[in-house]
């Protein structure tokens, strides 16, 4: 927005943007180390070099994670960084889940790098850039910022997908992902443009305010000016509150100046804009379509099975978990901003419900016919995206907005689902990758695993029944679905609850087929999984064990998760 103030100095709350700075600088540091380590340290072995890179990456992720945890506890929910970011509890916890997923990635990657002979420096740098994009996306409060975040994380993930240059499948997957992702980005940009056109701002927080103003102006002709004044005065006060350490008086002065400028600009906009909610909604639909692609929700899911199968397993894990968590966090912030327009729930509920329904049914039915492990997990993640979207639809439904407590509960249930979903997928993909090439391939290769590797088979069973969710209580997957569906029933969306139940019942077939193969079928002679010796590293086994333990622990004491944040 053109403010016209030349003396304006942006206020930067360094403590709040520090995590993102650390991630970006960490990525650059990795690139530098990758290039310079050989020159600076004479005679360093490639193994040592890789392990230095691993520790630097893990260290910067860990520090960032601690900072996010600090932010979760001290969360204010106010916008900062010129209103481009806004860290509420949901955003911070989402970012924390993203960090968890990427830490697991780092713990698992040395084995992959050794086996596939991948370039460690590039991979870690790309990972850190992707994580910077994801964490920023989960706290983004401004549409252009969100777009940039999505592009950063997508580009990094495209390259990570094609990281295994010796595998044609990997290259094909990266290409497919990139081409389709470019389409999705086009949708996003167009949607952002529409929303800007309809409201005159790209800020989510701001969008909501201007919509309020718009409704008021429709109701009372002539009061438009007054409201614009009041609105901008409020904006000024916000600036004072959130300015950080600046002396209050200066801030007030600046805010007044800025406020006057905003009055001037808003006045023009309010007078000249057609203020048509159709454009706002169309913009939302386009952004939602772009996000559906990132979230692999039906009918934008076609890329997922191919990409999951072609990408290295732990990259597929990152795509399935961390990137989805970030995108869902953004989607939730988006619908919350939109929902200030009073007709938004009525307009969008059908859209959200139908995408959720189609995803659940398509994902589950598609998974039935899959014979390969990672393709099956891809379809399962499509279905899980549908379940989470049920939560989002519940959030949007009008009933929830009248009741802040219910609103909070629904957000919590979605967050819990995302957390559980991350853990389950980490375990499933992690074990599949652990078992080597065969583990990532045909499910039939898992036959007889329970006698060869009882602990791994038990872990995979835990992952499967937790993904199955509603079937077996005592896992985190059960409580995730339970909370989401309970809120859906409470909000009167029984149809979506039915769909979720039907989907879960269908999913029993393909999840348990893996268990059947591991426990009940005799060994296959040809290419059994884990026929030989498996390479291990401590970080890998530790993260698998940690995920399994957390699935069980939060399966018994689910509410402890929210206690972490308060």
């Amino acid at each position, binding site marked *: 927005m053109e403010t016209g103030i030349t003396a304006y100095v942006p206020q930067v709350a360094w403590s709040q943007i520090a995590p993102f700075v650390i991630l970006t600088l960490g990525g650059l540091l990795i690139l530098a180390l990758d290039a310079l380590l050989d020159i600076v340290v004479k005679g360093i072995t490639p193994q040592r070099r890789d392990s230095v890179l691993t520790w630097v990456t893990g260290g910067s992720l860990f520090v960032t994670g601690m900072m996010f945890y600090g932010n979760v506890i001290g969360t204010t929910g106010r916008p900062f960084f010129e209103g481009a970011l806004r860290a509420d509890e949901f955003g911070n916890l989402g970012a924390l889940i993203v960090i968890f997923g990427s830490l697991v990635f780092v713990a698992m990657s040395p084995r992959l790098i050794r086996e596939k002979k991948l370039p460690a420096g590039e991979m870690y740098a790309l990972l850190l850039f992707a994580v910077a994009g994801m964490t920023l996306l989960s706290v983004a409060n401004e549409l252009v910022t969100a777009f940039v975040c999505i592009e950063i994380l997508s580009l990094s993930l495209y390259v990570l997908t094609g990281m295994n240059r010796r595998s044609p499948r990997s290259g094909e997957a990266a290409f497919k992902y990139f081409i389709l992702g470019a389409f999705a980005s086009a949708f996003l940009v167009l949607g952002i443009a529409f929303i800007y056109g309809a409201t005159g701002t790209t800020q989510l927080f701001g969008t909501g305010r201007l919509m309020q103003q718009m409704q008021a102006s429709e109701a009372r002709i002539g009061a438009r000016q007054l409201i614009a004044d009041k609105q901008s005065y409020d904006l000024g006060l916000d600036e004072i509150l959130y300015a950080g350490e600046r002396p209050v008086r200066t801030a007030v002065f600046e805010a007044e100046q800025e406020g006057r400028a905003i009055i001037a600009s808003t006045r023009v906009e309010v007078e000249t804009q057609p203020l048509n909610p159709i454009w706002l909604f169309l913009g939302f639909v386009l952004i939602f379509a772009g996000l559906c692609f990132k979230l692999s929700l039906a009918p934008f899911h076609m890329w997922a099975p191919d990409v999951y199968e072609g990408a290295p397993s732990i990259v597929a894990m990152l795509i399935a978990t961390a990137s989805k968590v970030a995108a869902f966090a953004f989607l939730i912030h988006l619908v919350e901003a939109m929902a200030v327009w009073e007709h938004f729930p009525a307009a969008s509920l059908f859209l959200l419900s139908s995408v959720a329904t189609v995803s659940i049914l398509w994902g589950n039915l598609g998974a039935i016919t899959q014979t390969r492990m990672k393709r099956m997990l891809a379809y399962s993640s499509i279905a899980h995206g549908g379940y989470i979207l049920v939560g989002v639809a519940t959030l949007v439904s009008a009933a929830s907005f009248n009741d802040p407590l219910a609103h909070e509960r629904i957000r919590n249930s979605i967050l819990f689902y995302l957390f559980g979903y991350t853990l389950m997928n980490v375990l499933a993909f992690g074990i599949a990758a652990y078992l080597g090439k065969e583990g990532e391939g045909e499910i039939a290769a898992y036959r007889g695993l329970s006698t060869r590797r009882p602990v791994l088979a038990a872990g995979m069973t835990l992952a499967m029944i937790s993904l199955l969710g*509603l*079937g077996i*209580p005592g896992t985190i997957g059960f409580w995730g679905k339970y909370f989401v*569906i309970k809120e859906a029933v409470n909000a009167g969306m029984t149809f979506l609850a039915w769909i979720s139940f039907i989907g879960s*019942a269908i999913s029993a077939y393909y999840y348990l087929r893996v268990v059947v193969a591991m*426990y*009940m079928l005799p060994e296959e002679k040809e290419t059994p999984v884990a026929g030989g010796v498996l390479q291990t590293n401590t970080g890998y086994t530790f993260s698998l064990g940690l995920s399994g333990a957390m699935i069980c622990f939060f399966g018994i004491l689910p*509410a402890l998760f929210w206690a972490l944040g308060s």
Partner: protein
Amino acid sequence: MYLTLLIFIPLVIGALGAAFLPARQMKWAALAAMVVDLLLALLLAGGILGNFDWNYNPAAEGTESVWVFNNEIKNPEFQLREHIPWPMLQEYEISYSLGVDNLAMLLILLTAALGVFGVLCSWTAITKREKEFYLYLLALQTGILGIFCALDLILFFMAWEVMMLPLYFLIGIFGSKDRLYATMKFVLYSLAGSLMMLLSIIWIYYNSGVSTFSFEKLSGNGITFHQYLPYLGMMLAFLIKVPLWPFHTWLPDAHTEAPTAGSVILAGVLLKTGIYGILRFAIPLFPIPAVAFAPLFSWLAVIAIIYGAMCAIVQTDVKRLVAYSSVSHMGFIVLGIFCFNAPAMNGAILQMFNHGISTGGLFLAVGMLYERRHTRQMSEFGGLAHSIPIYAALTMVMVLSSAGLPGLNGFAGEFPILLGSMNNVPMLIEARDSSSFYALINQVNYTWLVAVLAAMGVIFGAVYLLIMYQKVFFGKLEKSENKNLPDLNIREWGQLAVLSVAALVIGLFPQLLMKPISKTTNDVLTMVAGPLRFDASHPNPELEPVVEKDDGHGGDHGHGSDEHASVRAH
């Protein structure tokens, strides 16, 4: 703490054994766990029956066989209650709450006893992957005991699902040829049902007005519902588990493919969890839909009785025959419950116990035969009474008990059911808020036909069981493999002998169980009668309900009578 101990001893010992014991000794740990559990269950039964007032007379309380109405709602008195709010989930009102009444006590006793037999019958039959086998068996025991103790709806659901997984592995790993098909069918059926139940439970939470999953709190506040969709959702889970025709098709497959221990526990206890759920939760929470749908379920039960018996007659596999006989017998139990009168319900609950003994015994016997000959086809046998006489004699007791011979337990259960169904099944109601949909269901109500068809099921039962016995044990001993079969050893003999004695004792002294059962029946019927009678415009409980003595067909009910709750009985 007592019930917690009872529930978790099998699982804990099983987990410790699987972690620390060598595979060969796992069965000893399993046996120890089951025996300790049985002792605890006996102590529990002794405690409850010791405090039971044996002069208890339900007729004095006024709910004997006819509807007598009082507005006051009586709850079953649960004993040994435990109540711990689920940690950190107080706002969701989930709690770990346990308690038993007479019904649960009987079923716990049955479960614990059959658990011991389950271990004993696998003693030599299971030779590979023993650790896993006994771990699953013990986990199954924990799940089933949890079902019978749970007083919180979510806890009940959890136990319900925990029960499914071990049986899935038991059938899938240790079953016979078509085990994968059978186990998948079992899981998909169970899961479909239980998910509908979960939806109903969540529905109850939001529509009860007190936002709780605690059954005690619900029934203590006299909360009942008249909506039929959640009732049907809940009943679907229970009827699949029972299983009632037409949801029964998983049962013959699961039974046939399961290992002996799995079959024994499946038939003996697992099917009862469905009936238990109906009696404990479905009927008390949904009295009006329960009565309204009673004719429908009575008819389905009659179809199950006849259809199960017909299918059993044509079977060539002994185990499959026993499985179909289970379908038929469970039909009797469902019929007894949905007659909604004291004799039939008493009989149904007693028959739950009896069916555990007789069918469990039959599955044990079939398992012993299978262990010797590795086939279950009737054509492979014949004349076994000559080669293994002790086995033949003890199996005879089980067969006759299952067929309902007077003097044995089957008769003591089936007779009151038939008596009750002939007397006044199923009564018609016109609750004040009954919709035309309920009235439509009540149109198809020919009570005498139900009773007659059910009684014919008894005859069919004798037919298929005696044909089976004749083909297997009588005739000439022709096959050479059958000539040198070893007779029962002391372990096998002991199992069948204990069950035979139990069958005889219950057959001769049914009052031993009937008295405590009548208390449960009284509780259930009172809980149903209260809400049906309740009418704000008639606060005076002295008022007699409109009872019409004539016209059992109910052709024109819904017209003519006044608008208050009116109930017609024969």
